[in-house]
């Protein structure tokens, strides 16, 4: 790569060391072009993503009804105190978000991995199975909420019929009953998440060097040992992505509970509480923003984890 000019250094070589063989510098016109190519997307990103994020943090320390900008009053940490001490849905929402994460991590993700392992073998009809498990990934979580509502309904839903409870007093309104609806929603979310995990792991498994497996088998490892000691660690990049997707999905979960009942009555999630405080009458922008900041701070954990994995090597170079 020593002959490449600084304008075309592919990869990360030139970022920290001055390249030895500079062929030529950018012309004035190229600088303008480059400024445009970088400037416009960056401006969009700043104005519509990062500045709003900072404004959310700022608004979380204010009291505001969302009408006139002059009505914004400083509130210190009052919004946070209110949320933690006096806002009944907050702690259930935290519990539900944790439950969402645990359920996806312990059930949906391993299920997707299991499907991938099984389908990666030379079995007949693997494409058909893959298509079936992958179909829900194409659908929005909002639509999945509606589809499962039809399945879960008290009187007309298939599940109560299959359980033999349809039309009897024992029939369960799976999305309406606050003691079971979070589980019903989690099953519906799993329907989509497992297929997503499956497709990523199928690609990951295809990328594992087959000689690794052969070597492990020659050493006398059985199938389970081979998988957990050799194959699974070799898929580290995919594992990182799966961990990040699982955590982020459980923080972003919103659409499905909003479609069911706007995230109330057993389906409280932090993301839904943010929106409940921002829309409708009696807007409490400060409280909504404080909830958004809590969500942001939690999200920074998986985001930082991912960025350090994805870009860690760049910085060392």
């Amino acid at each position, binding site marked *: *790569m020593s*002959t*490449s*000019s600084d304008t*075309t250094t*592919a*990869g990360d070589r030139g*970022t920290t060391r001055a390249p030895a063989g500079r*062929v030529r510098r950018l012309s004035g016109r190229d600088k303008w072009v480059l400024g445009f190519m970088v400037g416009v*997307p*960056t401006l*969009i*990103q700043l104005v*519509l*993503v990062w500045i*709003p994020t900072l*404004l*959310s943090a700022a608004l979380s320390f204010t009291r505001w009804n969302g009408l006139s900008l002059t009505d914004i009053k400083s509130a210190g940490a009052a919004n946070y105190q209110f949320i933690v001490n006096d806002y009944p849905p907050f702690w259930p929402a935290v519990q539900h978000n944790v439950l969402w994460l645990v359920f996806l991590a312990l059930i949906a993700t391993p299920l997707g991995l299991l*499907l991938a392992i*099984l389908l990666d073998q*030379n*079995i*007949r009809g693997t494409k*058909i199975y893959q298509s*079936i*498990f992958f179909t829900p990934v*194409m659908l*929005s979580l*909002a*639509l999945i*909420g*509606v*589809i499962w*509502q039809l399945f879960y309904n008290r009187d*007309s839903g298939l599940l109560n*019929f299959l359980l033999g409870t*349809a039309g009897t007093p024992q029939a369960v309104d799976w999305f309406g009953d606050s003691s079971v609806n979070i589980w019903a929603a989690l099953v*519906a979310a799993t329907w989509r998440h497992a297929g997503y995990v499956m*497709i*990523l792991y199928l*690609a990951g498994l295809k*990328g594992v*060097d087959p000689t*690794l*497996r052969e070597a492990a088998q020659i050493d006398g490892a059985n199938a389970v040992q081979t998988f957990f000691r050799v*194959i699974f660690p*070799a898929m580290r990049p995919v594992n990182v992505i799966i961990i990040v997707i699982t955590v*982020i999905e459980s923080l*972003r979960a919103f*659409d499905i509970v909003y*479609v069911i009942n706007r995230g109330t009555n057993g389906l409280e999630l932090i993301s839904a509480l*943010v929106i409940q405080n*921002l829309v409708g009458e009696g807007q409490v922008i400060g409280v909504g*923003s404080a909830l*958004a900041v809590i969500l942001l701070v939690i*999200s920074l954990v998986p985001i930082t984890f991912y*960025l350090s994995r*994805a870009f860690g090597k*760049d910085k060392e*170079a």
Partner: protein
Amino acid sequence: MSIIKPAPAAARGHDVAAAPRTGTGGKRRGPAKNHLGIHIFLIVMAAMWLVPLGWTVFTSLRPKADTDKYGYFSLGGSFNFDNFVEAWTRGGFAQYAWNSVLITVPSVILILFFASMMAFAVSRVSWKFNVTLLIMFTAGNLLPPQVLAAPLFQMFKQLELPYSISDSGNLLNTYISVIAVDTAFQIGFVTFVLSNYMKALSPELTEAALVDGAGIWRQYWEIILPLCRPALAAMGTLEVIFIYNDFFWPLLFIQSGDRLPLTTAVNNLQGQFLSDYNLIAAGAMITAIPALIIYLLLQRHFVAGLTLGSSKG
């Protein structure tokens, strides 16, 4: 170039059978004995997977009168597409579908355009903050959208527009607001994926152009971009589905029901059709069909897009 290549272990390989311990290795020799259990498991799982969608299709194809007469759990009566026709006309689905097009098409074009420019600038040109900016772009896409909701809503509300452009007098209730935020939110992810793809292209490609005196724009537009066609196709397909399936931004910004795209309009299905579950099922299927068609036609690109995004970590 360490960041370009997938991890060393991820060498190419195919037919990586997940270890039937006998090691029959039989390619296309039909299922071996120890596959029987796997097949039973997969058939059960696949059947369970099909049930919710199958039930929706089943319900949507039955006339309400027949369901009332024979009950929901019966095979009696006729099957036809009347519910689809009625849901389409009564539910205003033509308008929703058109709204989805109006939002999705410009968003995806803008995303691919801006993200490919940014990806080119951070991957093919070496300058001081390119990695920093790439990190910023990637992180932005990972934020929960609700974090930005209040400030974006207020920004759009405060930005006054002439009534000739927007009947709300500001950016709320316009397609522009949804397109802008969808674009901003998705640029990060696509930039990240495309920059990895572009880094893997040989530096000699643009060197030759440099010798010919080609400027940055020509290197980008005439040399790099055509080579990125597979990645652009994959990202384009993926983003069409992502934007089409986006529920949240239209919900936040658009107040008029007749301006909602299909995905957000499903929120109103129950209000519109009350307890006519046959019509609700038909409405749900109408919303699912565009995504399923794209999947059938462009499955390869869609899966490639998902896995491109995850090939690094």
